């Protein structure tokens, strides 16, 4: 199948510019760029007034399969990704069984090939069972197709174990993605520790619970010579630690989620369990620091930390609710509304953080718009405005704190390997 995308504005992270041109897709690859391209038999896509991007990459997704198929499956999660404009995603290993061995990695890759709508890049566990005690078989995981290591959802609490893991990952040239949380400091906490946790009587998770481990892991990564990626940065202190480490030349990268650059802990008022997320929603000062970190390049990546949960699991007491926000289908709208239209990031900077930067961290040949590259493309309508309606989510997880919020910027076409996997015509 050939596709001819006409009149769109390309955002090219590799050329670092935006320009209007046609794109020809043939045999799953980008075949040509140029003005007024013609091709017999090609499906014509009118992209006038729309943005044509390298397919978006979400570096931080929980697909829940195997083990938690009531919350999400590889089929529904990748469909939600396509709906959100993502053509590739990296999935976290906290499944059941944990992706700490090559069998689980192979299962995910096989299932994704058969049922997946988008490219799936599995992340292997750092430690066996993500228990933080013994190292997982990292080289086997890499051989099976893992692109990074993480015990996400859990912190590797033992500094010696984390240090060895970093040394070993560096040996096989793989990045380590750190979930930074001192679980003694955060123990049983349900939200950020501050004024609002005091008002609500919920146990707080102090900013220090994140920051002490960010500091620890930066020190360990320097010693180990490891490529460290800090997941879901949520506090001003973490942003500052990472900024300082980068200025000292450390090979560290970091990500922020749309909810952490949009919402504050005030959103927990009323005990809506869809606001319960780990790390928790922080203060306005933290949100502003995360935005500043995105702007000045301290934070390289925007990732969703898509954490879907079956509805009944969230319809419980706040303390009993699981952490997590279903994020794939609101990401583009939040990036455009909260960052691009707010003047924090240019469209090019925003797209770099969702394409080229995560691709570089994961060392995958994605995230570029070049002749001969895989034809993974996303078209978004930057002018369209829609209200978030979780009932219309493709994901099984309707757990979003953004229900009812009006967002500008809607993904309308998702192309993976030269095939249209999702065409969105809009709410009635």
């Amino acid at each position, binding site marked *: 199948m050939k596709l001819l995308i006409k009149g769109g504005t390309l955002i090219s992270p590799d050329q670092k510019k935006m320009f209007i041109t046609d794109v020809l897709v043939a045999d799953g690859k980008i075949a040509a760029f140029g003005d007024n391209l013609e091709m017999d038999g090609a499906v014509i896509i009118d992209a006038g007034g729309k943005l044509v991007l390298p397919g978006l990459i979400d570096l931080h997704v929980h697909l829940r399969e195997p083990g938690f198929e009531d919350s999400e499956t590889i089929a529904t999660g990748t469909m939600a990704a396509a709906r959100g404009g993502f053509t590739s995603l990296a999935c976290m290993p906290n499944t059941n069984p944990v992706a700490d061995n090559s069998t689980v990695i192979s299962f995910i890759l096989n299932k994704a090939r058969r049922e997946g709508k988008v490219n799936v890049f599995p992340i292997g566990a750092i430690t066996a069972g993500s228990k933080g005690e013994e190292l997982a078989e990292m080289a086997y995981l890499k051989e099976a197709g893992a692109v990074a290591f993480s015990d996400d959802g859990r912190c590797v609490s033992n500094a010696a174990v984390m240090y060895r893991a970093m040394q070993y990952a560096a040996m096989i040239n793989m990045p380590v993605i750190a979930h930074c949380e001192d679980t003694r400091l955060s123990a049983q906490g349900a939200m950020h520790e501050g004024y609002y946790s005091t008002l*609500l009587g*919920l*146990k707080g998770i102090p900013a220090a619970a994140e920051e002490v481990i960010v500091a620890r892991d930066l020190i360990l990564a320097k010693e180990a010579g490891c490529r460290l990626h800090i997941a879901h940065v949520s506090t001003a202190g973490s942003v500052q630690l990472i900024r300082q480490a980068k200025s000292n030349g450390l090979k560290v990268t970091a990500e922020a989620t749309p909810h952490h650059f949009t919402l504050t802990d005030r959103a927990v008022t009323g*005990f809506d369990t869809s606001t319960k997320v780990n790390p928790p929603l922080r203060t306005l000062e933290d949100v502003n620091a995360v935005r500043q970190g995105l702007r000045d390049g301290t934070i390289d990546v925007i990732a969703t930390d898509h954490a879907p949960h079956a509805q009944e699991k969230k319809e419980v007491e706040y303390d009993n609710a699981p952490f997590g926000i279903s994020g794939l289908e609101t990401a583009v709208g939040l990036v455009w509304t909260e960052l691009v239209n707010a003047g924090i990031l240019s469209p090019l900077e925003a797209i770099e953080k969702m394409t080229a930067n995560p691709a570089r961290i994961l060392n995958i040949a994605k995230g570029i718009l070049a002749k001969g590259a895989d034809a993974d493309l996303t078209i978004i309508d930057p002018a369209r405005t829609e209200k978030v309606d979780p009932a219309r989510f493709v994901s099984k997880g309707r757990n979003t704190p953004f229900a009812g919020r009006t967002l500008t910027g809607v993904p309308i076409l998702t192309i993976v390997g030269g095939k249209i996997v999702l065409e969105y015509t809009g709410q009635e």
Partner: protein
Amino acid sequence: MIQKKNLIGLEHIDTPEIELILDTAVAMKEIVFRPVRKVPALRGRTITNLFYEPSTRTRTSFELAAKFLNADVINISSSASSVVKGESLKDTVRTLEAMGTDVVIIRHPMAGAADLVAGWIGATIVNAGDGAHEHPTQGLLDLFTVREKKGTLEGLKIVITGDILHSRVARSDIWGFLKMGARVSVCGPATLLPAGIERTGVAVYCSIDEAIKDADVIIMLRIQMERQKAGLFPSLREYARLFGLNRERLSLAKKDALVMHPGPMNRGIEISGEVADGLQSVINEQVTNGVAVRMAVLYLLIGGGDA
């Protein structure tokens, strides 16, 4: 009548509504002291006490309040219900609603339970304490007790001492007293003072001697033994020494200062027996007033009309 359908907390209730409840409680207290303590205000109404935590005082107080107003009362405790079979809170309260209960009075160990239940069902919800969030009827009975003794709350100096971090009583008292024009101080060890508490408008102390200087009212909170095990303070002995209310300390307050405690007390720890039973103590009157205040709350929420 008060405008709201539910009583979840004192943070989101208006001052005139608090005044209406306190004024109504004056009339209700008169009923409590009648030889025949029964008025037909809530005849035919069904009130369910749904208690997920052990409680004698609050549950009995609500039960008596409902019975004095002639409502039918059902008591459910989590240990003797389908909760032990793993039923969710949502399913439990929806079942109660389907059976036609008019009011659910809920006590729950987790903050926000009453808010959530109010969103799930149409029955009137009264919060009887949710985690460390709020205990509005305790707050109201504290306001009532002080107003009865002092005539007004305006300008009084109220000091709340103890485990502020885990106390729903402290939170409801803070909102209630501030709304009624009193000045409020909180006092406790640094590890039991919650983050940002000063933003509510209270003064914060770690020295009880400084805090209670010229106080009109001293509210002592129960210290729970497990807080020491959790490493929040070194020992009960040291806690009592630094934060316990005894006769010498009480003399730093105004001569006519009231001593209050929501109960149950740890005598000899947060409060000496001598002070608890002394002339300035109104701890037993708080209990009596609790019934009157809860009658007022129930009446104002679902009474009236043809009653």
